[in-house]
């Protein structure tokens, strides 16, 4: 059973690292990548280029994105009755307390700061996989609204 993970990330380097990490760690993960907040919402709403996008089992959301930033995406997701049950994990370079506080206020399921070193970043993704994709009971996918 494939696990659908949506990665909302504008840095091509981080996208690549994430793809490689999941490829090594969990072959069941199908990673979908969008590189700005507008694309993220289109994917989630099955609009524009994404009429058949699968509903993510988990979303990894960067904060600093072009067009619509991750804070806005998070607010939109959590204000939407259909989307708000998708576990949304903020994964960002920002370590600012204000960003952490705001994300939890907006009901991010959790907040992770990307470590600068590759090995540590890969280890963090492994722990995301181990916790969220093997231990956590994720909500069952719902029929598209």
């Amino acid at each position: 059973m494939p696990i659908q993970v949506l990665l909302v990330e504008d840095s091509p380097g981080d996208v690549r690292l994430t793809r490689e990490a999941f490829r090594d760690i969990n072959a069941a993960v199908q990673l979908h990548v969008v590189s700005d907040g507008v694309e993220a919402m289109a994917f989630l709403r099955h609009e524009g280029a994404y009429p058949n996008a699968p509903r993510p089992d988990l979303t990894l959301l960067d904060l600093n994105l072009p067009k619509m930033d991750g804070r806005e995406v998070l607010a939109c997701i959590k204000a939407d009755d259909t989307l708000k049950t998708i576990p949304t994990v903020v994964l960002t370079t920002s370590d600012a307390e204000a960003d952490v506080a705001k994300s939890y206020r907006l009901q991010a399921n959790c907040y992770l700061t990307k470590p600068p070193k590759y090995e540590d970043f890969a280890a963090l993704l492994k722990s995301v996989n181990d916790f969220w994709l093997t231990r956590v009971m994720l909500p069952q996918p719902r029929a598209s609204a």
Partner: protein
Amino acid sequence: MKTIDEKDTSINVLLVEDSPGDVRLTQEAFREANLSVRLHVASDGVEAMAFLRHQGDHVDAPRPDLALLDLNMPKMDGRQVLAQIKADDVLKTIPTVILTTSASDEDIAKCYQLQANCYLTKPVQLDAFDNLVKSVNDFWLAKARLPNRQAE
């Protein structure tokens, strides 16, 4: 009265759990995994809310860094506690992890609708239970960024 400016590096975890056996297992798991954890236990939903609101016996209760919440409890169940936490502007930023025997799709769906941060089903086997609590420690208390102690 709290001492002002005392640097407190302990991590406060609130366990809302009515089964004494599960309380003990959880205490032991945290004791082995993380000496910084101070585990506070409430054995029903009413006590949990009193703890969180600093009422009754819990006037000086610390704000939890993480809450582990059982669902099926006397007086007020975990679903109601979750709903109250997430409806409260001050409390809703406390990461709240459901930790229950229930594996029902209905309970899982409901808890995510109520904005539980995540949902875990307790394994029956002791070793597996211990392992699960340790994974909570490893992810939430060592990897995740938690909101600052001070309520805004």
